């Protein structure tokens, strides 16, 4: 058998070398640039502060439901804000009355801006009062709910991983369903990132996005 010519061998080695350099670059790019954005960070200590206790007047979030895409709501903390001692607060707010005997709450206003308008541009629109029970992790006031569980969780949001606490609540009544709320103490108003509830045949989801501060 004839020995391979040194010229042919050298060409093969160069091709292999080029292939390996290219493969190293591609794999290195995947490992150092692509994967870190998907890699789940290490566990954090369970240390959850009640986001509603830090709510400030004028804080605003934009809410969008997956069942009605394009229809946006603006939820803004309004007077009297956080009410720890309802007996000293107002007797009536919007459709809520008898509030001096209510559980401690956070008061907010919900507006619906016209299409194309942002929450900042809709400050003069009529608003409906919404209340949040300070013990109910961002659930609307007036529902019969109990807390089931709270667990820390990493979720994908806007292409990055966000640390949240996933709260599971049970709602009693004719609907009798389960709610999931992703909350974070640094998020404005009630601290909600995402709210989901089971409905017949699936899940209804609301996404909450910070929408600035008007004060």
């Amino acid at each position, binding site marked *: 058998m004839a020995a391979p010519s040194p010229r042919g061998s050298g060409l093969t080695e160069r091709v292999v070398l080029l292939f390996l350099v290219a493969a*190293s670059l591609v794999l290195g790019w*995947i490992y150092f640039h692509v994967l870190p954005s998907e890699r*789940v960070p290490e566990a954090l200590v369970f240390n959850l502060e009640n986001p509603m206790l830090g709510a400030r007047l004028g804080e605003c979030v934009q809410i969008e439901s997956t069942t009605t895409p394009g229809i946006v709501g603006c939820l803004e903390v309004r007077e009297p804000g956080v009410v720890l001692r309802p007996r000293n607060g107002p007797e009536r707010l919007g459709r809520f009355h008898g509030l001096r005997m209510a559980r401690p709450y956070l008061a907010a206003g919900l507006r619906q801006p016209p299409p194309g308008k942002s929450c900042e541009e809709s400050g003069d629109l009529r608003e409906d009062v919404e209340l949040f029970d300070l013990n109910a992790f961002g659930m609307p006031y007036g529902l019969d709910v109990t807390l089931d569980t709270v667990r820390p969780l990493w979720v994908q949001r806007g292409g990055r991983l966000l640390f949240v606490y996933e709260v599971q609540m049970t709602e009693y009544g004719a609907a009798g369903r389960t709610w999931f709320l992703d909350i974070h103490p640094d998020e404005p108003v009630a601290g909600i990132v995402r709210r989901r509830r089971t409905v017949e045949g699936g899940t209804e989801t609301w996404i909450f996005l910070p929408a600035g501060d008007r004060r």
Partner: protein
Amino acid sequence: MRALILLLSAVVLILAALIVYPALAGGTGGATASTGRLFDATRLITDARAGESATYRDERGETWTFKVEMAVPGGPERPPRIRIWSIRRDRSGDPLPGGTEVYEHRPTRHGLYPLMAPADPEGYDRVWIWSRIRWAAVSWQGKPRELWRVDLIDPALPEAGGADHVVAWLDESVPVFGLVRWQRRDRTWELVDWSPR
């Protein structure tokens, strides 16, 4: 040249393994991954059963007993209701005047902690408000333990100087409210006796 080829081959193999292995192990790529301890509130007052009790003692030697007289578990259309009987006794074991109360604890309205105004069960502004929940180290019965520490606000107490601050330590295995210890104002109540859960 051959040494360089060998070196680059090793680099390619190592990078490929680093990329593939975590994916096979399920460590990357998922939208969510649980990362911590579960605070299971369903194992506190919500699942209390008739007959279980917990007794606490403070620094003065007074005791405070909570007993579940009756429990109606929740269903899809009906929230749970727990009838709580409580008695406070002085250090010699005699009942304190006005220290015996019976009320129906409704977790949907009264929350997870004892109602400090059981004589006024409709006084919902008397419920404690949670301000922080964490898993923390504590010394209990002379041993270091890790328990749920919940910091709370008691709206019945004055705000000035943080006098309204309550600290509760919880363990799901403890009967009635799951309370191991709570500090309210200048008193600390420690679990000293309980009947099974």
